[in-house]
């Protein structure tokens, strides 16, 4: 393991890989710092640039975006009180008060170094666990894969914001989209209605880009002119961010249990499909507060809050990469775009990915590790400049992002039909967001739809006994977990509804 990792690092530090990794990390930090621009949107913007690069260059750039974006959100969260990305929401709770209390340098560097250590611990998990997990995944038959995908969908539908029914419908829409075109076994046209446009099916990346980017940009346009919180932090943008690094690192490493526990929370949330850094950030903060001996200090600028929130959201990246590299299942929309880029380069994801693409896999590990010191260096040089970048007007940003979306969609198949799919699903995504449907289940449905069908049909072709899904231990366990996940979600919904009724009655 150490030898291929060493080779990977030696490859990545060569300028033809280091440059895309550096640029990816820089773009990630900028995208992360820009309020209203998520990491997903940033990676979508970067996607068309990776088509002309070799696979490792492209994936290194994307890994850089992921790492940089997860940390970049803390700049505006700490200095302006506005989280740059949803994964930095909890960072504002203590980062902004600490900065306002006259310690902006300490606040921002606690965040940066926590991201660094959390991310590297996540990387350690990624490197140690991916291989053994992939070995387990290799023993999976179609029954186990089918059940695993069902579990992923059940969890996402239950965990996503909004009601369970809306989550399930959103996942169902994603699955239906993958059915249009032709069936994956016999190639028979299906739901094409004699249309050439529909016969080819809906390509995954344009649908994903449309659903995510359009809904994001249109929502940003809607919020134009609304008063933003955190304007009081504008003065902080002009202050000095100097801090004693040794002291800051000592503050973080002096709380090893907090760092480790927040990292574990981040990794576990990352491994769960489609539950992103925002959940990791919030949950780790909540855990840190509950486990703290002085919870009353939280929200007033305590270092524990920043350490927990920032170490968790960067560790989350390592967890997400484990899922995609061991199982070929994207943990979130960011890794879904990475999967799409891999497919375009002809790389087959799945449990054989690491063993069949040793150089590429260890190159990704190396890129992930090297991206962390790069992120620290970029933040050190440019944190204050980033604040100026965040002043870029939406009227400039939105057209550029949309043009890049069009370029990315067109490049998938060099046909205009991909661009039409992009716009159609852009409208669909926006409509779903406006009617309160979560997008994460839809994305996962899109990603897994064809694989679910293939594994279901394969299992029936191997043995038509349907009870095998339940009687095979791993498959049965996964289906049981899926049922429990749905039941838990229903129970939580009912409990919430009964509490709401009680509060209304008391009122």
């Amino acid at each position, binding site marked *: 393991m150490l030898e291929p990792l060493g080779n990977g690092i030696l490859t990545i530090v060569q300028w033809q890989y280091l440059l895309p990794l550096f640029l990816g990390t820089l773009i990630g930090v900028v995208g992360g710092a820009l309020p209203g621009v998520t990491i997903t949107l940033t990676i979508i913007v970067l996607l068309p640039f990776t088509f002309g690069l070799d696979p490792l260059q492209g994936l290194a750039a994307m890994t850089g975006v992921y790492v940089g974006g997860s940390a970049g959100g803390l700049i505006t969260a700490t200095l302006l009180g506005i989280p740059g990305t949803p994964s930095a929401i909890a960072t504002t709770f203590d980062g902004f008060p600490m900065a306002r209390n006259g310690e902006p340098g300490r606040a921002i560097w606690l965040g940066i170094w926590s991201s660094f250590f959390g991310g590297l611990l996540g990387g350690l998990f990624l490197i140690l666990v991916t291989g053994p997990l992939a070995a387990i995944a290799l023993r999976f038959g179609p029954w186990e894969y089918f059940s695993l995908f069902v579990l992923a969908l059940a969890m996402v539908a239950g965990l996503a914001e909004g009601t369970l029914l809306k989550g399930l419908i959103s996942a169902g829409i994603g699955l239906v989209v993958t059915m249009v075109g032709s069936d994956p076994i016999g190639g028979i046209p299906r739901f094409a209605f004699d249309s050439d446009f529909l016969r080819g099916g809906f390509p995954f990346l344009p649908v994903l880009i449309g659903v995510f980017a359009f809904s994001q940009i249109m929502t940003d*346009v809607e919020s134009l002119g609304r008063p933003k919180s955190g304007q009081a932090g504008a003065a902080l943008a002009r202050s000095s961010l100097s801090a004693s690094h040794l002291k800051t690192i000592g503050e973080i490493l002096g709380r090893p249990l907090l760092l480790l526990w927040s990292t574990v929370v981040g990794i576990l949330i990352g491994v769960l499909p489609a539950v992103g850094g925002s959940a990791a950030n919030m949950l780790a903060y909540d855990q840190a507060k509950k486990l703290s001996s002085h919870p009353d200090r939280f929200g007033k600028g305590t270092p524990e809050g920043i350490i927990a929130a920032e170490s968790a959201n960067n560790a989350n990246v390592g967890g997400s990469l484990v899922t995609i590299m061991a199982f070929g299942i994207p943990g979130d929309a960011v890794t879904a775009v990475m999967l799409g880029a891999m497919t375009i380069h002809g790389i087959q994801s799945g449990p054989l990915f690491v063993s069949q693409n040793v150089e590429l896999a260890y190159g990704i590990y190396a890129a992930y590790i090297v991206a962390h010191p790069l992120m620290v260096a970029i933040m050190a040089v440019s944190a204050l400049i980033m604040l100026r970048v965040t002043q870029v007007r939406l*009227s*400039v940003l939105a057209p550029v992002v949309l*043009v890049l979306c*069009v370029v990315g969609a067109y490049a998938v198949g060099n046909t*205009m039909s991909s661009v039409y799919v992009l716009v159609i699903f852009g409208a669909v995504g926006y409509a779903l967001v406006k009617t309160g449907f979560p997008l994460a289940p839809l994305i996962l449905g899109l990603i897994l739809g064809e694989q679910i069908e293939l594994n279901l049909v394969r299992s*029936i072709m191997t043995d038509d006994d349907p009870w095998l899904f339940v009687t095979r231990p791993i498959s049965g366990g996964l289906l049981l977990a899926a049922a429990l996940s749905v039941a838990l979600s229903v129970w939580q919904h009912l409990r919430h509804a009964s509490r709401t009724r009680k509060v209304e009655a008391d009122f």
Partner: protein
Amino acid sequence: MRLGRDGVIGLICFAVSLALLVQSFSLPQLPLTPVGPGFYPRIVLGLLGMAGLGLLLQDLLAARADGPVSGGEPRPTAGVHRRVILLFGIIAAYVLLLPVLGFRSSTALFVLALQPAIEWPVTARAWAAVVAIAIATPLAAYLVFEKYLLVLLPRGSLTGW
């Protein structure tokens, strides 16, 4: 009884699922496989239809209990609504122009139209910036993608480039 927004969506979801479900029965059976191309869609559409029906019932029950209307973010004002519709219109026009005028011309027009639609420039300097960005965006994209990264961009039937 008046349906809420969720109820309407549930009804649409149920109707579309039912229509596709009916269509799935007309799909041919494959000779070598025990299940045909309609097998999996029938499962998904059945579940989706039931979820749609569930959403409809939930909405009806909520309306009967006179509870809060569920779903969605706060409604935007009419002005914001118009702006979003205008943006989608400009995007649609851009996509229709792309195969006619090609990437460079239509992108310049698109960026030129979209910027004022999002935020109206009030000074001459702001207008100059709008024009400069409209020219720079397609030019930079052309140089980076088509010239440097060799990623193809849409060509226009009228312009040939």
